């Protein structure tokens, strides 16, 4: 992409809160400069201009695949794009809306919120986009961090893939010298298993990390987190809810959920037999 032509870019959103696009718009001081380096072919949240068929060098996609419409849209984006960058947790692991995946059916969710069984939306269990199409790069966060988007964009303009962070939030706590909330106060901090990059925002404010950047794929030791928090006196349901806030689609967390729910089922059954 070092040739004089500007890279063609599209910014898309599937199901989510729009926060990652908004973070891009929040780059106020350099926004115009930044956008002027691309040929923008689609940016629904900020522009009416669009070229639906145009080929794209880069597609930034936010949001989870939560309906069949999302999926169709995503497939079309994939067809026309050389590179897809998933921005934000929704696009990576489904984010909060995937919290009850495997625990609560879509029908049940429909019934609870709309009081009807009919699936008006052709809903799918919310998932990140890499569950359906090939994704070249993922920028985590709920929402993404401006500094990381910028780093990614400058790298891409340079022609490089940006370096991805794959260490946990605890590292940033230490770099900043924040007292550890887990060790010192016994707060249920998820920092040890969550992808860093936020500069440990929450511990910096005295708040235990709820995991908004998602666990680190193939690395996070979620079973250890459960053990540690159990030891600190939190109950299983509480911990599991917490792990699931942003990790409903994370494999190890799903395994853990299954293990625990089977265990508690077993317990319940044996109670029933007892009585």
């Amino acid at each position, binding site marked *: 992409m070092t040739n004089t032509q500007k890279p063609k870019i599209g910014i898309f959103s599937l199901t989510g809160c729009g926060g990652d696009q908004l973070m891009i718009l929040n780059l106020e001081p350099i926004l115009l400069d930044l956008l002027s*380096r691309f040929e923008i072919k689609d940016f629904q949240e900020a522009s009416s201009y669009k070229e639906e068929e145009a080929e794209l060098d880069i597609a930034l996609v936010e949001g989870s695949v939560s309906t069949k419409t999302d999926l169709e849209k995503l497939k079309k984006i994939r067809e026309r794009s050389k590179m897809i960058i998933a921005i934000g947790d929704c696009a990576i692991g489904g984010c909060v809306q995937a919290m009850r995946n495997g625990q609560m059916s879509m029908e049940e969710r429909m019934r609870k919120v709309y009081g009807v069984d009919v699936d008006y939306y052709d809903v799918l269990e919310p998932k990140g986009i890499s569950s359906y199409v090939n994704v070249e790069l993922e920028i985590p966060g709920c929402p993404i961090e401006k500094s990381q988007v910028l*780093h990614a964009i400058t790298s891409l303009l340079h022609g490089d893939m940006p370096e991805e962070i794959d*260490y946990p939030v605890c590292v940033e706590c230490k770099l*900043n010298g924040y*007292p550890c909330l887990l*060790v*010192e*106060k016994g707060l249920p901090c998820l920092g040890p298993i969550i992808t860093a990059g936020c500069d440990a925002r929450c511990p910096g404010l005295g708040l235990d990390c709820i995991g908004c950047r998602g666990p680190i794929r193939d690395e996070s*030791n979620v079973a250890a987190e459960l053990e540690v928090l159990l030891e600190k006196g939190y109950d299983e349901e509480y911990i599991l809810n917490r792990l699931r806030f942003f990790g409903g689609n994370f494999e190890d967390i799903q395994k853990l959920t299954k293990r625990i729910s089977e265990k508690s089922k077993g317990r319940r059954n044996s109670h029933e037999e007892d009585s």
Partner: protein
Amino acid sequence: MYKVLPKENLQSLFEGLRKIGDVYAPVKISGLSHDFRKVNSISEVDLEYTRTMIPPKKFFVKPRETLFEFDEEKLQYAEVQNGGGLNVILGMHACDINGLKVIDAAYINENPDKYYMQRRESTLIIGVSCTPDEYCFCRSMGADYAVDGFDLFLHEIGRGYFVRIGSEKGLRVIEENSSLFEDASKEDIEEFKENERRKAESFKLELDISGLQDMLDLAWDHPVWEETAEECFGCGTCNLVCPTCRCYDVADYVELDLKRGERLRRWDSCMLRKHGLVAGGLNFRPTRVERLRNRFNCKGSLVNGLLNCVGCGRCTLYCPAEIDFVKIMKRIRGEP
């Protein structure tokens, strides 16, 4: 030459130190934590502290620092200027002073690191004696007493501090504030000795380090690594709080014009996944098993004749998974 600083003169000494430069000292920042911070009055300082979470190595190898800024178009780079002038670190413990010597070995003795050197030279270190808690095992590591590596060392005694002088810089401080110091009397010396003896006896935690290097070598395939890896988060805390760990990572950042930018380094940790990763996805320490083993081996090894652990207890105390450094070393030795 030994001196005594009467307690009531500490305040005045502090004022004297402030004339030398910025003073950094342990400050209580939370229930359990202390941190070396810039202080303006002695009342902010807590010299009774046990340990800070982040060791004072942070003043010499900064957690994050710019190595230089560059401008590709002009083919220029600009080194970052160290503040200049002298700084004072007041209240370092013996383990941390000895820890710094381990880092010196890597950062000064061969291919000196300019930033580190400058900071080292422009810093006055004033040590202070301490009382070990249940995590301290510095005595086992031979790091409970600082023979050198400081400018002044204050040992608490009944009427104030028994002062050892470690360098010319230290001597100068005494000279410039000569009215604050008294000559050490026989009683003072006796008290100092008595305190040292009592401190030596008060250690609750011990680790036998004789032959530790071979013990580690023999434990290469010990089940302790796999077992510990199950509990370990691989979060890097143990490295980042260690006064002798000094691994760093480097990354470049460019501005939007793709011409100007900076090269940054930040503390790294051998417990993190990328530490051993090379091209083609090959990782020399792919799982926490290899990483844990590497860390303990590194800590127990002698590099330039120095042990890479000073027994400060931080890695155990601050480990979110409560992995116990000494326990593991003992297991490796085959101790019950």
